C-alpha cells in the first residue's frame, strides 16, 4: 500500500463504525470467560445483541485484557457522546441483562434502565484504578478491536512506520530512540537505542530482529496483555527497529502457553502482509521486512537471549557464553537484536510523538512508563501502567486498592525469580530501575506481587527457588547443583530443621551462584533468598532449631 492509503483505510473504517450507536468492547482473554457459557465472551455478546435486534446499531469488539482482571469478566460499553461504562464481574445472566437493560436502550437512544443488581456491576471510569494510570503501552487495550488491522489504523496505527520509513533515515530513528532514554523492559534495562546502534553497525547480509515474548516470570502477564490486545503495536515496533538496523528478518518467539496471543499475532501478521505493511516494499518504499512466529515449549530459560537463539535454531534452550553477543552472533550466527514486547510497543509512540515527550516522563535514568502485573493479596489484580518514578504506595494502595482481605500489606516482590522483596516501610520509593536496585530488588519485567501479613517470606523464598531449580537448564554446575542445594537448605529451614550454620552455607552457595553461573538465571536465582535474608531475617530465625527468634522490627509492617 501507498502511505496515503493509511488515511483512506482509516476513513473507511471510521465511516463503517459511525453507523453504530454503541460498542461493546469485551475482554476476550481466556481469563475473562463468562461463567456458565461455553462460547467466547465476544460470541456471547454478539448473540445477545442479535437477539435484541440491535445488530445494526451495536458493535461487539474483542479487545485484549482491560487490566482489571480480578473484576473480570469485563465489558466496556461505549456510546457516542457519553462516558464509557465498565461492566465488571459479569456472568451469563448479568451479561444478558447488560445488553437488554443498558445497551439496547442506549442504542435506541432511550434511557438505560439497569436494575439495582446490574448497577452494582458498573464501575465508573473515574475509579482510581484508572485515574492514577498513564497509558502509553496499554493505551489501546480497552477499546481496540484486537483482531482488526483497520481499527488499529483508525487509532493512528502504522503512522510511526510511515514517518520512520518516509521521513527519517535509519540513523535518525536510532538517534530518536536513544534520545528518548527508553530502556529494555525485559529485565536488564539496557538502553534500547544503544542496542540498536550496536546492531546497526555490525555488517551482515542478513540480520534478525527478535521479539522476546517468552514471558516466563510466573505471575507476570504484561506481554501477554499487549500481544493479545494490541499485536500490531508490537509489529510496528519491530518494523521500525528492522528499518533502523537494516534487518530483513523478524521472529516473534512466543510462549506456547499463550495460544490466544499466538493466534492474535499470527492474524496480525497475515493482515499486515496482505496490506503491504510487511513483506517486500513496505508502504511503497524500498524497505523489505518479514516476520514469523516461533513457539516456546515450556522453558523459562529460553527468555535468556542466547537460549532463545538456540531454541530458534531448533535446539535445547541452553545459554551460551557472551561475548560474542547476539548483536554480532545471533540466530544462525547472524547479527541479531532481541527486544522485549513492551519495549517494542513503546517504539511507535516515541517515533510519533517524539523523544522529548517520552523523556519528559519518568526519572533521570528511567524514562517513560512501566506496565506492572499487579497480583497477590491486592484488591485490584491486573495490568497497570504508571510513569516511571511513581511511588510504590500509589500502585499498591491507590491503584491496587490495598489488600482485599483487610490485612496489612507486608511487602511487595518485584522482578520475579530474579528479584527481591521490598518491605512496606520502603513504599515511598519511586519505581525505577535504579531505585529498585538500591533496595536490593530489580524492576525485572514488571511482576509486582503484594504480600500481606499472612504470607510467609520463607515460603515465598522457597517458592521462587523451586521455580528456578525447576527451570535451570542444567548446563552449568553452580546453578544446576547450587540451586538444588540452596532449595534443600531453605526447605529444611521452612520445616523447622534448619540451623544457623545452614544460613551461612546458604550464603556461600549464593555467592558461588552469583559469581560462577553462566547466565542470568543462575546469577540472579539467589536474589530472592538474599533479599529475604536482608529484610526478613527474623522470619528465618524464628524457624531455626538453634536460633533465638529475634523480635520483628516494628517498622516492617505498615
Amino acid at each position, binding site marked *: 500500500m501507498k502511505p496515503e492509503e493509511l488515511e483512506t483505510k482509516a476513513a473507511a473504517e471510521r465511516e463503517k463504525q459511525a453507523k453504530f450507536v454503541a460498542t461493546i468492547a469485551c475482554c476476550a482473554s481466556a481469563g475473562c470467560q463468562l461463567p456458565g457459557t461455553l462460547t467466547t465472551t465476544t460470541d456471547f455478546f454478539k448473540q445477545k445483541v442479535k437477539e435484541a435486534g440491535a445488530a445494526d446499531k451495536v458493535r461487539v469488539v474483542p479487545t485484549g485484557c482491560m487490566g482489571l482482571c480480578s473484576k473480570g469478566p469485563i465489558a466496556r460499553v461505549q456510546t457516542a457522546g457519553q462516558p464509557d461504562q465498565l461492566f465488571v464481574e459479569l456472568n451469563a445472566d448479568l451479561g444478558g441483562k447488560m445488553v437488554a437493560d443498558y445497551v439496547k436502550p442506549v442504542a435506541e437512544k432511550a434511557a438505560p434502565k439497569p436494575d439495582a443488581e446490574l448497577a452494582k456491576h458498573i464501575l465508573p471510569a473515574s475509579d482510581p484504578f484508572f485515574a492514577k494510570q498513564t497509558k502509553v503501552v496499554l493505551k489501546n487495550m480497552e477499546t481496540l478491536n484486537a483482531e482488526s488491522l483497520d481499527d488499529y489504523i483508525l487509532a493512528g496505527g502504522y503512522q510511526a512506520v510511515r514517518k520512520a520509513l518516509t521521513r527519517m533515515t535509519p540513523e535518525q530513528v536510532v538517534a530518536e530512540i536513544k534520545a528518548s532514554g527508553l530502556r529494555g523492559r525485559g529485565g536488564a534495562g539496557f538502553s534500547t537505542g544503544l542496542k540498536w546502534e550496536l546492531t546497526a553497525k555490525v555488517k551482515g547480509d542478513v540480520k534478525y530482529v527478535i521479539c522476546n515474548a517468552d514471558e516466563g516470570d510466573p505471575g507476570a502477564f504484561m506481554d501477554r496483555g499487549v500481544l493479545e490486545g494490541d499485536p500490531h503495536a508490537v509489529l510496528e515496533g519491530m518494523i521500525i527497529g528492522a528499518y533502523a538496523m537494516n534487518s530483513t528478518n523478524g521472529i516473534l518467539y512466543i510462549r506456547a502457553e499463550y495460544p490466544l496471543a499466538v493466534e492474535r499475532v499470527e492474524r496480525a501478521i497475515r493482515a499486515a502482509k496482505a496490506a503491504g505493511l510487511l513483506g517486500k516494499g513496505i508502504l511503497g518504499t524500498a524497505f523489505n521486512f518479514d516476520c514469523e512466529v516461533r513457539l516456546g515449549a515450556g*522453558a523459562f530459560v529460553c527468555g535468556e537471549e542466547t537460549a532463545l537463539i538456540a531454541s530458534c535454531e531448533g535446539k*535445547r534452550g541452553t545459554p551460551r557464553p557472551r*561475548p560474542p553477543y547476539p548483536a554480532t552472533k545471533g540466530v544462525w550466527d547472524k547479527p541479531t537484536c532481541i527486544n522485549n514486547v513492551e519495549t517494542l510497543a513503546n517504539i511507535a509512540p516515541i517515533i510519533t510523538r517524539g523523544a522529548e515527550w517520552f523523556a519528559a516522563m519518568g526519572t533521570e535514568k528511567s524514562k517513560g512508563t512501566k506496565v506492572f502485573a499487579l497480583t497477590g493479596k491486592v484488591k485490584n489484580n491486573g495490568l497497570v501502567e504508571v510513569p516511571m518514578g511513581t511511588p510504590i504506595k500509589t500502585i499498591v494502595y491507590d491503584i491496587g486498592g490495598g489488600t482485599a482481605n483487610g490485612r496489612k500489606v507486608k511487602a511487595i516482590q518485584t522482578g520475579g525469580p530474579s528479584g527481591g522483596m521490598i518491605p512496606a516501610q520502603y513504599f515511598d520509593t519511586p519505581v525505577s530501575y535504579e531505585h529498585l536496585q538500591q533496595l536490593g530488588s530489580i524492576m525485572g519485567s514488571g511482576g509486582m506481587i503484594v504480600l500481606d501479613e499472612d504470607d510467609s517470606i520463607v515460603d515465598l523464598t522457597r517458592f521462587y527457588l523451586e521455580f528456578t531449580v525447576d527451570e535451570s537448564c542444567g548446563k552449568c554446575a553452580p546453578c544446576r547443583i547450587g540451586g538444588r*542445594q540452596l532449595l534443600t537448605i531453605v526447605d529444611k529451614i521452612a520445616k523447622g530443621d534448619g540451623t544457623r550454620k545452614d544460613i551461612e*552455607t546458604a550464603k556461600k552457595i549464593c555467592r*558461588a551462584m552469583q*559469581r*560462577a553461573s*553462566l547466565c542470568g538465571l543462575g546469577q540472579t536465582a539467589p536474589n530472592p533468598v538474599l533479599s529475604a535474608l536482608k529484610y526478613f531475617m527474623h522470619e528465618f530465625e524464628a524457624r531455626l532449631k538453634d536460633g533465638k527468634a529475634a523480635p520483628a522490627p516494628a517498622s516492617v509492617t505498615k
Partner: protein
Amino acid sequence: MASAIINGMPVEITPGETILEAAKKLSVKIPVLCKHPDLDATAACGICVVKIKATGRTLRACCTPIDSGMDIVTEDAELVQVRREVLELIMSKHPNECVTCARNQNCELQTLCADFDIRHMELPSLVPDIAKDTSNGTIELDPRKCVTCGRCVQVCQEKQNVWALSFLDRGIDTRIAPAGDISMAESPCVSCGQCSAHCPTGAIVECDETQKVWDKLIDPDVVCVAQIAPAVRVALGEAFGFAPGTNVTGKIYASFRRMGFKAVFDTNYGADVTIMEEGTEFVERFAHGKGALPLITSCCPAWVDFMEKYHNDMIPHFSSCKSPHEMVGALTKTYWAEREKIDPKKIFVLSVMPCTAKKWEVRRSADMSSSGYQDVDVSITTRELARMIKQAGIDFATIPEAQPDHLLGAYTGAGTIFGATGGVMEAAIRSALFLITGKNAANPNFEFTRGLKGIKTGSMQVAGKEVRIAVAHGLGNVETVLDEIRKAKAEGKEPPWHFVEVMACPGGCVGGGGQPYGVTDELRLKRAKGLYQEDGATLWRCSHDNPYVQQLYKEYLGKPLSEKSHHLLHTHYVQRPTYRR
C-alpha cells in the same frame, strides 16, 4: 600488536584468543574442568571464573575472548573461595569412589579437588541412582560420575557425527545417554571411544578386560600370545613418564615376556600383510577393472561399524581386508600353531590396541573366528596395558628392551605408520607402485598423506595413469568425502578418488579412544612423529619387502587374495540398523 593485562602483567594478545590462552603465555594457570583443548568451550562448570579488575565482574576464562586493554585478575581470595564452593557443589552430586574408580590418580576432577583442598563434604548427597551401562562391551557409562561437562556429547555429535550420546532432560536431572534412554548397545555408538578419551572423569571409560588376561596367564594349559598395535608403542610411555612420542616397543615386548606370554608378535607385521592384500585388491580394481572404485580402507572397526550403520551404500567400495590385529590373530591360530604344533584351542591371543572399538571387532562376526576359534581372544587398550604393567611389578622405565618373535613380529616402516592418519594410504601407495610397476619408488615418503588436516587429497602418476587418493580422519570428516563419491556416481562421472583411507579417530590411531588421557593435536603430532621416525629408521620401508611376509606367502598363503587368504584374512559387510530399538 594489541595487549592486555593479566594479574598486573602485560601480555600481547592475538585476535580471538581466550583469557585462558593468554594467561598460559604468562605461566598463569587458570583451573578448568569442562574445557578440553581439543574442543570448543562448553562453559559448563564455572571453575575458570576470573575478574575484570575495574568492575569486579566475573567472566569465564575458557570461553571469553580477551580484548585489547582488558585488565584481568585470575586469582584472589574470593575467586579461590568461589571455585572451591563450585567444586564442593559438584562433589555433592558425585560419588566418593576414587579408590575403586578407573580414573583414580588420573582424573581431572580428583586433581582439582586435591588442589583446592576439598576436605569436607557437608552438603547432602544428590548422587542420582542410575545404573551403569556396560551393554556394548567396549566403553561403559557411569552417569553418577558425570559432571555434565558436555565434552563427550560434543565429540560424539560434532567431531564424530555419530550422535549416539545426547543430553537428556534438564536441570539437576540432566544426564548423558543415548536418545530415549536406550542402552549403548542399542544406540548408534560405534565404540570409537573418543568420548572416553575426552571425559574428565570416570563417567565414561573403556570396559576393563585385564582380569580376563590374568586369568589366562595363570592357566598352565593356555599358550598366551600378545601383539601390540602401531600406535601403542609411541603412547604407552606417557603413562610411565616418557615424553609423548617416545618409542617404547622393546620395553613392551620385554614386559610381555615377563608377564608370561609365550610368544610376542606385532600388529605391525599384520599391517604389512594387510598392505599385501589390500594393495593387491587395489591393483585388481584400478588396473584390471575388477570391482568398484574408489577402494575404501577397512582396518578401523569404528569406521566399519559407522559405515554399516550410516553409509551402507558404500559396502561395494569397502576393502574386504580384516584389520591387522585380526590377521595376526588368524595367522597365530593357523600358520604359527601348525608350525609350532600347538593345538589352536589352547592359544589365547591378546591384542593391545589404542582402540576401544577393537573390543567389539573381535566379536564382530563369524569371520572373526576364521581359524576355527575366535582369532583374537581379548583386545585391551593402551590404558589397560599400562595398568597391567604396573600390576605385574615391572619397572617400565628401566626394563631392558627385548625382541619380538619374528615369524609374526618382524615388520617394516610401512606397517609402523599405520598408526597415524594417512599411514595406511602411504604404506599402500608404496606397495601398489611396486605391484603395478615392479619397482619401488625412489623416495618412499608421500608427505601429502601426513598431518592433521581433516581431509587430505593428492594424486600421482603410476604407469602413465593418474591415481587420486583421499584421506579422512575423525568420522565427522567422512561425509564430505562420501558425498562427493556419491555425486560422481550419480552423475556417471569418474570417481573423484581411486583410493580412500578413513580412520575414525582424529589423528588416526595415535589419537585413539584407548590411548593415555590428555590427547591434543600437539600430542597427536608428537605420537605420529614417533612413528614416522621409526619408519625412517627401518631397514625395510615397504610391506612387500618384509621377508617374513614373503615367507608367509611362500610357505602358507600362496599369493595375496588366494583362497586361503580370503578365508583367513578377509571379511564381509552387512547393513546394520542405526537404532536397535
